[in-house]
């Protein structure tokens, strides 16, 4: 709950504060997975985790470490963008260097503008220099993409289900290059700028991409110790299984 965040004790080195933004509006299909994966991977490193699930009738706290935005249908997406802009909490958090990880509709919201119900432009939060509109066809299926080598994260694997087409401005870098799937529509997938990361991998995007989850956590706490291999065995098998289904190596 957002009011709980005000009661946080002064920041210890070991607590990571995760804020799930508007699950009532932006959570269409398994978006909770990102929260659970970040919490799990932080705890596996002995880090304490504080979780705030902030609904759209509550204020977004400004003192979180990682903010998660999920997917949503057109109307909730527009409403979420409007409320986030009016509340100002997310932009303030971004301003003080918090990490933002946004998927699908959330990815479009953190951009400068996106397409509304009839395709009309709707203003986004402008935290990422991207503009999104509606494409001709819905991109639905498994997606594989190679992450910008500067980020040092292994190949992305996920599921996409969107009709969005996203163009980057000069301030945003592509998160990855599409190997199989649709992504932004121009051969790139997602975007990032500073500590704001967006992707069309929808729902539980971090589940099959523990490296991406660790990158976000590392931005908050610095270098992370490795995870006990027994705790990673299953997810590595799942990655291999999904990548093999796309005919690409892990």
């Amino acid at each position: 709950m957002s009011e709980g965040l005000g009661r946080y004790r002064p920041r210890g080195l070991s607590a990571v504060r995760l804020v799930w933004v508007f699950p009532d509006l932006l959570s269409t299909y398994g978006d909770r997975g990102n929260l659970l994966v970040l919490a799990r991977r932080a705890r596996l490193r002995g880090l304490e985790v504080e979780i705030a699930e902030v609904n759209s009738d509550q204020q977004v706290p400004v003192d979180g470490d990682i903010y998660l935005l999920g997917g949503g249908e057109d109307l909730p997406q527009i409403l979420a963008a409007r409320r986030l802009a009016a509340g100002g909490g997310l932009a303030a958090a971004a301003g003080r260097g918090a990490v933002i990880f946004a998927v699908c509709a959330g990815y479009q919201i953190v951009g400068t503008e996106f397409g509304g119900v009839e395709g009309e432009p709707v203003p986004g939060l402008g935290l990422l220099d991207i503009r999104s509109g509606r494409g001709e066809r819905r991109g639905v299926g498994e997606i594989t993409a190679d992450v910008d080598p500067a980020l040092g994260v292994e190949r992305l694997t996920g599921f996409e289900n969107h009709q969005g087409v996203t163009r980057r401005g000069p301030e945003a870098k592509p998160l990855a290059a599409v190997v199989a799937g649709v992504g932004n529509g121009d051969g790139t997938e997602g975007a990032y700028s500073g500590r704001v990361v967006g992707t069309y991998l929808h729902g539980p995007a971090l589940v099959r991409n523990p490296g991406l989850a660790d990158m976000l956590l590392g931005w908050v706490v610095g270098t992370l110790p490795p995870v006990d291999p027994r705790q990673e065995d299953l997810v590595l098998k799942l990655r291999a299984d999904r990548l093999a289904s796309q005919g690409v190596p892990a």
Partner: protein
Amino acid sequence: MSTSSPPSRRFSLPLRARLATTVGGAAGRASRLAGRGDGSVIGGVIGLRLKPDLLSLLARGRQIILVTGTNGKTTTTRLVTAALGTLGQQIASNAFGANMEAGLVAALAKAPDATLAVLEVDEKFMPAMLEKTGARVVVLLNLSRDQMDRAAEIWMLARRWRAALAAAPGCRVIANADDPLVAWAAGQARQVTWVAAGQRWHDDSWCCPNCGSHLRRDGEDWYCGECPNRRPPVRWVLAGDEVIDPTGRARPLDLALPGRANRSNAVIAFAVAEVFGISATQAMGAVRQVRSVAGRYTQVERHGCALRLLLAKNPAGWLEALDILVPPPVSVLLAVNAQTPDGKDTSWLWDVDYRRLRGRPVFVTGERKLDLAVRLEADEVAFRMVGSVDEAVDAAGRKSMEVIANYTAFQQIRATLGRVG
């Protein structure tokens, strides 16, 4: 045509439609003999190819009841059929869940003399099927996230329902008032029987379908703080294990089928029965006789272990299935596939809270058991991956086991166990 005896309905069909149902029926029989399902769909497909307006022709002169929603269609169709059975008339029904146009055609063609038809309809096709059949009654059970890779987003679905029902003034809608999306979808229908059928899964109705604001909930009640949208006054109520009828009389349901979801389906069935002049008392006796539905809830014996089969296809369904599990130490087998009928996207696993499976033996199987395994690991549920039902039964070494599977995984398990129930 002779008028001395009531003509068989079949002969009121034009020649080409008669040919279409005959050819379709032959194909259905051939398909059954070939061991491909119950053969109903192939017959309907062929019939429709010969005569594209076959459904409208077959529906003519009958009272059609369409049953739709994300969960509970097949069971509710069965319960409504049981309740209407007390009228002593022949009833056409697609009892095995073939719920697209070809399945409806097959069900009607198979029962040419039935003047009543209870037809389950896929939620995406309800508007088209309503138009084609001119249904007398449409039942709206619930709407929640399901197979997002191929289904429309659910607000969009609710919008289509709303428009279709507004355009069918002669149709009576039986709608679950406790599901805000359903209530909104039925909101412009001319005649509605509102049923307080409950809603266990709230995660798709936090927002007002009318204006998008955060919906307020106060016990059973829900209302929008920013527009006039609110829960309509109800005529039938599911209250715990009891049904409260329109006179205010409460009585226990005592169903053979387990769980809240089935109590909800039963109360909806009573509301449908009322439209046909059947009292709750009459309907109750018939509804209580239903023990399993298309293999669901069936007990199957395997190597000395009694397995109970539960089908759950989406987060709302899993929530209801987890609710009815018998308590530990009885072991649980979970099976998940991601074929086309299941949806190829397993993201929904992360919408289900599995934590209450902690502290009992849990086995996972199915084509996407790795996805499930990673999900359970995140919820700190101990489990074991197995390659088959038999492996789970042998490893568990207990007298009973609960099985929850999604669509094609369920069918595979039924095939392994011998198509019983």
